[in-house]
């Protein structure tokens, strides 16, 4: 009798249109995925030379998310699910999830602000706190950055929106500053000439904007000097190494010493006020 009932159930399922609906839904899924992937591919191809990598990525994500949502609705409708009731339930569920995941929602809202602000894009070199690296991915929840020693750093959008972000490669040229102090008796005119010659002879230092030479202040090490040479952002390492080396050589040749901060450490028994050695109590 039981066996008969089971067979009856299977027969009823087979005879009903449920199987056909499942089959149709599976077909919709396969075709839908294919269409979404094709649209995503075409979007990437058509915009590759016209828009930035970041805009391309956002556009691609919008196409994928919208496509997946439409596909989900179509499949559920095909399976006979009451969408109005489901959306009502989803609203209540969404509220509950929202309350439970306020941080994530905060990150998503911050992500939207970051995207609209466009203070950096994929491929830019940014510095956040003590971390610097190349922006690798900008998502709704976080920004992923690859550091120069090849580590992946994930920074939540909420952190980024409320902290100082330095975009190192936003502008095509940069100024590299060399700051040091020289003794009070240094010939400052000769020092300026020496530094300017170093910049002029450097193949990657830009002739214009002209390098800046600034006597900043008198400090406890002597006279604080700032010398800044301009360069194309891609020449950073080459300029830094070559100018550092050249300035050091030129200063040495010109007998100009750079004042170093010093700490004097003395060992042995401390002298007493009357000039004699103070005897420590036993």
């Amino acid at each position, binding site marked *: 009798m039981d066996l008969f009932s089971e067979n009856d159930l299977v027969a009823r399922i087979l005879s009903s249109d449920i199987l056909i609906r499942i089959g149709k839904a599976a077909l919709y899924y396969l075709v839908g995925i294919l269409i979404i992937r094709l649209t995503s591919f075409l979007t990437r191809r058509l915009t590759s030379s016209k828009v930035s990598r970041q805009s391309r990525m956002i556009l691609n994500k919008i196409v994928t998310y919208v496509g997946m949502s439409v596909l989900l609705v179509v499949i559920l409708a095909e399976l006979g699910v009451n969408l109005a009731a489901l959306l009502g339930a989803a609203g209540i569920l969404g509220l509950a999830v929202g309350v439970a995941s306020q941080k994530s929602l905060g990150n998503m809202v911050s992500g939207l602000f970051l995207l609209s602000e466009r203070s950096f894009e994929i491929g830019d070199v940014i510095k956040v706190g003590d971390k610097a690296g190349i922006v690798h991915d900008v998502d709704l929840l976080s920004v992923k950055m690859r550091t120069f020693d090849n580590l992946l750093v994930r920074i939540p959008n909420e952190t980024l929106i409320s902290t100082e972000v330095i975009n190192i490669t936003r*502008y*095509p*040229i940069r100024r590299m500053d060399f700051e040091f102090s020289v003794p009070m008796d240094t010939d400052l005119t000769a020092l300026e000439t020496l530094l300017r010659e170093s910049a*002029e002879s450097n*193949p*990657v*230092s*830009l*002739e*214009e*904007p*002209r390098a*800046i030479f600034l006597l900043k202040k008198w400090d406890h090490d002597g006279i604080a000097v700032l010398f800044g040479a*301009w360069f*194309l952002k891609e020449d950073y390492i080459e300029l830094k190494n070559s100018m550092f080396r050249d300035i050091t050589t030129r200063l040495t040749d010109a007998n100009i010493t750079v004042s170093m901060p010093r700490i004097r450490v003395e060992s042995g028994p401390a002298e007493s006020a009357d000039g004699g050695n103070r005897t420590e109590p036993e």
Partner: protein
Amino acid sequence: MAVKKRNGTVPESTAAEEHWSVALDMNGERQVDLSDGRTVLLKRNGVELLSAISLPDEEDVNDPVFDVTILDGEGPTFIIPMLPDKPLVLQPDAELRILPDARIRAHIPIPLGIGVVYGEGEEARLIREFPAIHLSKTWFGEPFDGEAAYSWKTTFSDGLGPRQPDERIAYCPLVIRNESPEVLGFQRLILRVPFLSLYAVRAHIYTDRVTVRFRGQSQVSQVSIEKGPQKGLDSAVRIFGPRSKSDRALLRRSFSFIKNLYTG
């Protein structure tokens, strides 16, 4: 990049043309001296092209370190003159002022580098490039928006007359017209040499003629490049086409008036 097709339509060859566009034999070698004393060494062994550059203070030029390029066939290899790959920011060596409605006509000398090209006509491919002399890098425009260029100090003497023949120098016929009601006292002028072609005329090499119309500091200037050799040089032969296509938006920004922007 386009290199002149060497066919029967070419007028009688000129000294400058013969100096350049030299074909390297299948198993030949050649040395070319650059204006700064360096020597470019080229060797062709069938499909293998070896190139090297030696500095003037290197004693042993017979044992240089060669770069090797493997070619896809046995097509011809040419040595051609090349204009710099970036624009030149011209700095007059003396203060220059042009009154309203006046104009200056000058020949601007531009150092030529060497290019090694494989193939002919539209199929020609640039394999190696050796700049003629070291040109200082500079920036034209604001620090947040401008373009990279080379700095080039030159004389803006009036006149388009013949210059000292030198196959390693190209002369750019330049006309600056002041069409504004103010005196034009400029410090920098950008000359976008990658948009220019080269022409050989007897012992000289010329570029296209460039005309710049100044309409005031607040107005964009108009730059026109007249394709072809300047008037009166009918025997000119084009030996090298422009390196890049001209951009109208870029051509409008020509003058720079130095401001104290960078000293802070």
